[in-house]
């Protein structure tokens, strides 16, 4: 039986639209006009116990909204959702004991007290007796490389330490389902790596089902064999990461500042043109051809400045749509 089962899930918000200016204000006062904005539209998928699934999508794509609907915080406008055999929005105690939601920027630890105090409170709330709680805290702290940080007030911890403590607090009751919303947001590279390692270990050790959203490709690549791609509220791809990567053909983005304006035709042979604005060009070039192409670029074109980086998710999705891979 699937751990998570979602069918035709939708969430629509009603937003008031007011036109600018004096006339708009008067109209707004007399008769409000609203538009319906679909944050999530007709999403369906099933996740089996123990899977680690990544939710990929740009900002505002609908990932967080979907996650909140799965945890029961937000009520769907349409569709069915079932998690661990329960209807999330009823927020029944047996359901709540089996899940956890970790949101990157929001916190549950009490700010002025050491994490240990919040942990012991959680232990009481979830009905874990103190000795077992201490054992679990020890185990998780070792996995997360947290030591004395648990005894210092949360406000005195660095962002990385805080995030790790939040994870510990979220997992103390050994939930069967983990919803993680941007868990590595704002962390430095080391902390990100540590968190990813921890999540992989946790999934291995306890067989928990993990649903992870991120707009860092690296998070997903490191952890999730399966990926759900969400764009503008719709599910565009549900399948293996490997297959998606093959399509994307690991690319890097090269940003060029030319000294003169050149037509697209003279640039096409170096890579896929993402954007061409005056003298600024952005190209997608395959990783295995990168060095060679960049060499050719520099030799053939009047380049003033050059920058190489990973393409942002939105761009990738845009390209995928263009290529007809998805949608």
């Amino acid at each position: 039986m699937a751990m998570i089962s979602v069918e035709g899930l939708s969430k629509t918000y009603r937003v008031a639209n007011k036109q600018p200016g004096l006339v708009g204000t008067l109209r707004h006062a007399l008769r409000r006009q609203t538009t319906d904005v679909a944050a999530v539209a007709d999403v369906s998928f099933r996740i089996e116990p123990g899977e680690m699934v990544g939710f990929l999508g740009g900002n505002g794509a609908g990932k967080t909204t979907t996650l909140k609907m799965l945890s029961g915080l937000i009520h769907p406008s349409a569709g069915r959702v079932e998690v661990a055999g329960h209807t999330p929005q009823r927020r029944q105690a047996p359901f709540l004991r089996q899940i956890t939601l970790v949101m990157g920027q929001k916190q549950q630890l009490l700010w002025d007290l050491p994490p240990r105090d919040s942990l012991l409170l959680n232990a009481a709330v979830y009905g874990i007796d103190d000795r077992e709680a201490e054992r679990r805290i020890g185990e998780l702290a070792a996995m997360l490389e947290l030591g004395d940080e648990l005894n210092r007030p949360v406000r005195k911890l660095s962002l990385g330490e805080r995030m790790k403590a939040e994870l510990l607090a979220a997992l103390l009751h050994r939930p069967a389902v983990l919803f993680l919303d941007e868990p590595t947001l704002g962390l430095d590279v080391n902390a990100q790596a540590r968190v990813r390692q921890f999540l992989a270990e946790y999934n291995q050790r306890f067989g928990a089902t993990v649903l992870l959203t991120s707009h860092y490709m690296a998070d997903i690549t490191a952890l999730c064999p399966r990926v759900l791609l969400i764009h503008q509220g719709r599910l565009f791809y549900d399948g293996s990461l490997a297959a998606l990567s093959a399509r994307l053909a690991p690319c890097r983005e090269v940003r060029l500042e030319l000294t003169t304006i050149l037509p697209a035709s003279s640039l096409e042979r170096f890579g896929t043109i993402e954007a061409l604005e005056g003298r600024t060009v952005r190209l997608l070039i395959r990783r295995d051809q990168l060095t060679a192409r960049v060499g050719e670029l520099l030799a053939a074109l009047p380049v003033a400045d050059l920058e190489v980086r990973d393409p942002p998710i939105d761009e990738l999705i845009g390209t995928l749509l263009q290529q007809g891979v998805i949608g």
Partner: protein
Amino acid sequence: MGRYFRTLRRFWGMALASEVEYRFNLLIELVAVVANLASSLFVLSLFFGDGHRLGGWSWPAALVVLGVHQLLDGLTITLLQPNLTRIVSHVQEGTLDFVLLKPIDSQFWLSCRTISPWGLPPMLAGLAVIGWAAQRAGAPADPTTLVIAGLMLLCSAVILYSLWFLIAASSIWFVKIWNATEVLRTLLTAGRYPISAYPPGLRLLLTVVLPIAFLTSVPAEAILGRATASWLVASGALALMCLLISRWFWRFALRSYTSASS
């Protein structure tokens, strides 16, 4: 010319836009003023049943004191609260530095930055009560009395400002006691009643330590035409002294603030 008209339309357009959002707030504020006045009048009236007097003051005279308190309360809501309670947030968020870098005196900036129109109904209510009660108490309505009363009220406003400012500015050191202005507010409710109604010990405290007497009772006397030269001078001197103390204190606070944050 056309540019000025367009700008004016934009200004008034924006003003109207906020007006539309806040018209419910206005209703609430009006109800609040009426409720506030009703409850204060009720409590005050309890002292005057059966022809009793309060500290030697008659009912209409005591109402003048209440009216002055209401007026000052309105001033607090209009000017003092919206501005001075932000000093703490400036310190906490580190934005005080930006204020200090402006080419305008920082005390002026912090004290007058915004204004809340919601204090105007209480101020008007206060004036109405003063007007009605003064007339009932048989106060003289000649220009001299009015001018003197106005001056006394001005001194009260200055003293009130200085008290608020001193407490709000001390948050530069003590962010943790941001609610010290709340204590001030509750203590200031003592100003609803004539100073002579208090027992001698409290009376001394409320004249010398926390000059509440000068805030409401002294101007009320002036409005009722009972002002004496000595009280006038004392009021003026106190107001000036309070203002200077607030200025000196601010300079002192800034010195310690700027030398601490490096």
